């Protein structure tokens, strides 16, 4: 049930830090080596998208990444601070609505990558804004020192 949380101001350079942390914690949690590339890429995409949303919306809040080791799954949530349109079921349309022209194309491409990579994906929202939830299976015996 160990949890790591990372918060960073919406700057592109911190997306790399998020990727690094997610991959390191996922490896330790027992996520298979072969899947770590996927984790890295998916977290990067979700964070890039959140950074884009914050910047376009002029929001100063931090982007939040939460890493939760569950018994059989490793769960990652990436939360932005851009409140969703009430009742919008479809997070992707929300993300793209906020963007104009090529930003929209980029947001769409990011979501295409995430949804192509991650089997267990949920795009929703919480009280702060949008949340991308992703999870991966962990090996029964996590890596020991």
């Amino acid at each position, binding site marked *: 049930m160990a949890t790591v949380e990372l918060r960073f101001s919406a700057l*592109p350079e911190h997306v790399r830090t998020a990727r690094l942390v997610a991959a390191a914690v996922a490896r330790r949690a027992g996520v298979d080596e072969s899947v770590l590339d996927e984790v890295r890429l998916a977290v990067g*995409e979700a964070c*890039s998208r959140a950074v884009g949303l914050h910047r376009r919306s002029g929001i100063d809040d931090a982007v939040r990444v939460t890493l939760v080791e569950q018994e059989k799954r490793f769960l990652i949530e990436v939360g932005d601070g851009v409140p969703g349109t009430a009742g919008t079921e479809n997070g992707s349309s929300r993300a793209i609505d906020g963007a104009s022209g*090529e930003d929209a194309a980029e947001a769409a491409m990011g979501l295409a*990558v995430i949804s192509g990579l991650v089997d267990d994906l949920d795009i929703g929202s919480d009280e702060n804004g949008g949340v991308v939830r992703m999870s991966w299976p962990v090996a029964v015996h996590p890596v020991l020192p």
Partner: protein
Amino acid sequence: MDLSLSTRTVGDRTVVEVGGEIDVYTAPKLREQLVELVNEGHYHLIVDMEGVDFLDSTGLGVLVGGLKRVRAHEGSLRLVCNQERILKIFRITGLTKVFPIHSSVDEAVAATD
């Protein structure tokens, strides 16, 4: 790891060798390079991605942008890539249908439409 870029000319083609990570942080640098080349009149580009460790959708966007630019001048943009994990990203996004992807720079140089 950061982005490295180096450019050379082979016949009428311009090869851009890219190394490191192409992501939301470094993609602007690659975009600048492509824009500059097109502005200088280089319309047949080959982007060699063999040294790329990481590519995200921002990087894809920049490559698509480059393609649009060279096409506006009847040019071409070819990719060189053999890495499965990078190719996967082009496949997921359907961009394997948009870019000619070659397994070596020689092959890309020899290719015609």
